[in-house]
């Protein structure tokens, strides 16, 4: 069971088991009297939806083992889909029960029970807000940190009201041990949220870093050079990323993921290369040397497997950063693998690490191919976008043992991954890292 697909299937089976746990528990005697098929189905929808919502906190728990096995971005993509499914199950729960027995509308009627109706309406509105703010964050112009803060509050509210709803209805959990299990699972879910939003930040604050240098790169990018303050630094694998925060408060909403761009050989001097793309990243240039910085991580599975003797890196813009970490690490290790870098950028002026790559090409068996969207006058190399024809010109015909690493803007990744799949590259040899899931 070593392939990525096998790992996904095994992981999904465990997830399914936990999602079905409420139904299994509800079937254990003593059971309340059975009602009609549709009522039992509708009630079951609600229980499974609540289980899925509880599991959402596990998916975002940033567990190193899971992150290393499948990649944190894969977990977050799964979390996103699971959130949509859970919301639809809640909708199904309401619709099935209301259609089958309109008297259940009393649950949402404030004239019958104002508190209960208010709580359930808040739950439905919170759920809707989670979906709208997550799926439409960019279109709405909501800053990432504010989305992240509201997401946690809304999710915790939904879980809390959902659990109280189960207790208040009480049909299936009037027995103490059932109450203990449901209450316990809800506490675990909230504890996981606290683990990520409070526990991990506290741990990060106990291992601060100092900004040693802020280096200007091409393409409106800046490299933060960080040195550990009172500890041994960061042990990471080349290609991984960390969550960065400047705020000393553990409750700060400012925390953003960035790839490490330095070699693993220097844990006492780690570098993050950050492109100015939004409010937070545009402020990096103003960071003063000596400032305290907090890192959480490392995370990510965008790493070079030992068995990969030949690798092709396809980078777009700032997507070069994790690849740079891999190349610098290999260079320090005097690695002799056969490597190719296809690097798509706007122009030489906006090409991060343009001046560093020739040095790496000199120490490694590395072929660097620049693809400029707006090439300078007299440029005879590749221009435009990465296309199938371009890949055909530069990738070896026999690519059975080639590992591909793709990192860049989402549209580029969608296009390149599809091209590679069309060339027959299987999931196990196609490594990618996506940052803009929300």
């Amino acid at each position, binding site marked *: 069971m070593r392939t990525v697909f096998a790992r996904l299937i095994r992981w999904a089976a465990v997830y399914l088991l936990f*999602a079905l746990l409420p139904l299994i528990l509800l079937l254990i005697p003593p059971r309340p009297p059975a009602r*009609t098929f549709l009522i039992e189905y509708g009630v079951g929808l609600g229980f*499974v939806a609540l289980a899925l919502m509880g599991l959402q906190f596990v998916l975002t728990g940033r567990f190193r083992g899971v992150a290393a096995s499948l990649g944190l971005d894969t977990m977050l993509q799964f979390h996103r889909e699971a959130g949509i499914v859970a919301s*639809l199950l809640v909708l199904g729960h309401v619709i099935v029960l209301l259609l089958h027995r309109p008297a259940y509308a009393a649950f949402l009627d404030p004239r019958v029970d104002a508190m209960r109706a208010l709580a359930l309406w808040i739950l439905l509105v919170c759920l809707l807000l989670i979906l709208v703010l997550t799926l439409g964050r960019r279109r709405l112009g909501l800053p990432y940190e504010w989305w992240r803060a509201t997401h946690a509050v809304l999710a915790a509210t939904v879980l809390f009201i959902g659990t109280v709803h189960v207790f208040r209805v009480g049909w299936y959990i009037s027995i103490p041990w059932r109450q203990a299990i449901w209450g316990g699972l809800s506490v675990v879910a909230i504890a996981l949220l606290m683990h990520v939003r409070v526990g991990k930040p506290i741990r990060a604050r106990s291992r601060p870093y100092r900004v040693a240098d802020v280096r200007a790169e091409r393409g409106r990018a800046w490299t933060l050079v960080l040195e550990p303050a009172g500890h041994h630094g960061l042990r990471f694998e080349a290609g991984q990323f960390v969550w960065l925060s400047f705020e000393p408060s553990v409750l700060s909403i400012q925390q953003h993921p960035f790839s490490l761009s330095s070699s693993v050989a220097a844990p006492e001097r780690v570098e993050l290369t950050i492109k100015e793309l939004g409010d937070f990243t545009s402020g990096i240039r103003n960071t003063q040397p000596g400032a305290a910085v907090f890192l959480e991580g490392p995370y990510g599975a965008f790493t070079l497997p030992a068995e990969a003797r030949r690798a092709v890196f396809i980078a777009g813009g700032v997507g070069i950063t994790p690849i740079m970490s891999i190349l610098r690490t290999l260079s320090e290790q005097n690695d002799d693998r056969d490597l190719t870098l296809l690097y798509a950028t706007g122009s030489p002026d906006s090409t991060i690490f343009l001046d560093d790559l020739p040095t790496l090409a000199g120490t490694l068996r590395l072929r660097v191919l620049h693809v400029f969207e707006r090439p300078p006058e007299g440029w005879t190399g590749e221009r435009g976008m990465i296309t199938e024809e371009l890949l055909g010109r530069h990738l070896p015909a026999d690519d059975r043992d080639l590992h591909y690493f793709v990192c860049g803007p989402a549209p580029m990744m969608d296009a390149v991954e599809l091209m590679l799949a069309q060339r027959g590259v299987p*999931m196990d040899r196609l490594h990618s890292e996506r940052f803009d899931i929300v």
Partner: protein
Amino acid sequence: MSRLPLLQHVAVRRLMWLIAVVLLVCLAIFAGVRIAQP
């Protein structure tokens, strides 16, 4: 059906929706078992 190798992010999405279908089927079994019980 596409014969292209599956991409990981596509596989993840499909897997969740497959799980959703399995859950709906299991819910039907659950409801069936419940009403069959005395």
